[in-house]
């Protein structure tokens, strides 16, 4: 069986005709399985967002190919099918909501593709319930908190019966409780509905929730593995200008001060147990 997303030798160049042409992606190879939860990390300008925009054909590869659910993003006729398969959620909660009432916003996508009214109603209810926002369905979006707005944006994608959500720094503008709300919703959609998740973030404690972490640097994938494999390489991550969870960082510093600790410490809990043995 094909993977849900299959990217082969994909490159992308911004304004290739100009002097300051910029190669944002450089021969990327990446497969993402159906139902997988993948986090993408990397510094600003490493190509994370450019990669994300290829997953629902907002950008098309300059070279190589991007296949989503068996459809080539370069095939113009499949564009709407691809966008239905892959929903996007961006950083700013205020730029993504268009209607004056929450339920109308969530219904916008299905209405546009001519879903019958009864079914729209059902889809909106299901989508809002899935993100825990059903009791706000009659609210005006501007009265919601940032975390709630992001959950409405996610519901909008769910109402299109999307199989994959691509979230590009969905928590960057939120406060800690808003961040927790959004991450909890994403985890639940992944666990309960089996939705494929591609999650871009600068918050390493969020990336730890993924099955697999992809590290990008200068348009290339420079490392990938489980969160434990990635985040216990403390020196390497710090050299790249990325964070690691605090417990991993403290464990590394204690080891270099001569304290014997087992490898692979990632959480406060694991550090507490290891230190006291």
């Amino acid at each position, binding site marked *: 069986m094909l993977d849900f997303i299959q990217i082969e030798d994909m490159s992308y160049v911004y304004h290739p005709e100009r002097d*300051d042409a910029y190669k944002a992606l450089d021969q990327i190879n990446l497969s993402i399985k159906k139902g997988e939860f993948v986090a993408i990390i*990397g*510094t*600003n*300008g490493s190509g994370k967002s450019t990669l994300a925009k290829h997953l629902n054909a907002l950008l098309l590869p300059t070279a190589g190919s991007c296949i989503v659910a068996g459809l080539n993003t370069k095939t113009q006729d499949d564009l709407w099918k691809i966008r239905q398969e892959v929903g996007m959620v961006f*950083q700013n909660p205020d730029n993504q909501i268009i209607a004056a009432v929450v339920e109308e916003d969530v219904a916008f996508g299905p209405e546009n593709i001519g879903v019958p009214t009864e079914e729209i109603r059902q889809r909106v209810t299901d989508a809002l319930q899935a993100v825990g926002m059903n009791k706000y369905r009659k609210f005006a979006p501007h009265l919601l*908190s*940032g*975390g709630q707005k992001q959950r409405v944006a996610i519901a909008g994608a769910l109402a299109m019966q999307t199989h994959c959500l691509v979230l590009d*720094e969905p928590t*960057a*503008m*939120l*406060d*800690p*409780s*808003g961040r927790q709300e959004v991450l909890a919703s994403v985890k639940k959609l992944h666990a309960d509905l089996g939705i494929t998740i591609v999650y871009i973030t*600068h918050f*390493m404690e969020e990336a730890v929730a993924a099955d697999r972490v992809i590290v990008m640097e200068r348009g290339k994938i420079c490392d990938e593995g489980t969160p434990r494999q990635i985040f216990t390489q403390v020196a390497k991550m710090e050299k790249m*200008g*990325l*964070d690691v969870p*605090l*417990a991993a*960082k*403290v464990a590394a*510093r*204690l080891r270099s*001060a001569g*304290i014997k600790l087992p490898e692979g410490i990632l959480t*406060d*809990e694991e*550090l*507490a*147990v290891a*230190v*006291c043995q």
Partner: protein
Amino acid sequence: MSIEINKVSYTYMPKTPFERTALQEVSLTIEKAEFTAIVGHTGSGKSTLVQHLNGLLQPTKGQVMVEGIDINGKKADARAARRKVGMVFQYPEHQLFEESVFADIAFGPRNMELAEAEVELRVKKAMRFVNLDYAEYKERSPFQLSGGQMRRVAIAGVIALQPEYLVLDEPTAGLDPRGRQDLLKKISELHQQAGIGVVLVSHNMDDVAQLANRIIFMKQGEVTVNAGPREAFQEAEKLKAAGLAVPQMSALLQRLKQQGLAVDPGIFHIDEGIANILQAIKGARSC
């Protein structure tokens, strides 16, 4: 040398069905010698409060005094007092508009009708401060820079005004970890070396824990805590009520203490925390 906020209340859209009180009799003093952090949930009133510090919003009731002068007063000195306070908004890069980096940073100083030689000097200094090479970047379009560079241009535009107080509203949102560290280090230098009074609005407790020497929690338009960091972070219940997390280092030390290690959970600074853990481990390798 301070900004005095005297019983300030602010109501959005008064006498309409949308009337909402965003600040409720807030009184506090921001000392120039301090690095003040204002933290709170989205909607707690922190952005409304800081917009009062240079007269962008005028209090519905109460007074804002910058170094003894009411900034909403009618006299000419009110304008001069407002100019002492520089403001960096959220996502300041969205406010860039000029054709070149130089012109964008020079916009404020030129508006102050400074001589062109002085403008150039200020732009150079401001760019050096934010680590943008003058020769390399002055002619570049600000719109072709990376997000982190654009933000530094925007901050340089405020620095070039040479304010005595600098207010920054979530300056690190969306920056990668290194970009965040670099920017915070710069802000801290401004405070320590140039003696500028800094007010940082943030919901990142870890940033605040590393930098501030006064912490103000806001909730529903009121100040609930106004204290030094050690004292403030001990109010874990109020932190939670304000929708905020305790600094990660405090949480880790708390967990280690539960395990029986003799550490001090009152520490929130990362390096101090590590030193404290080392000491505790060496003191009792069997716990």
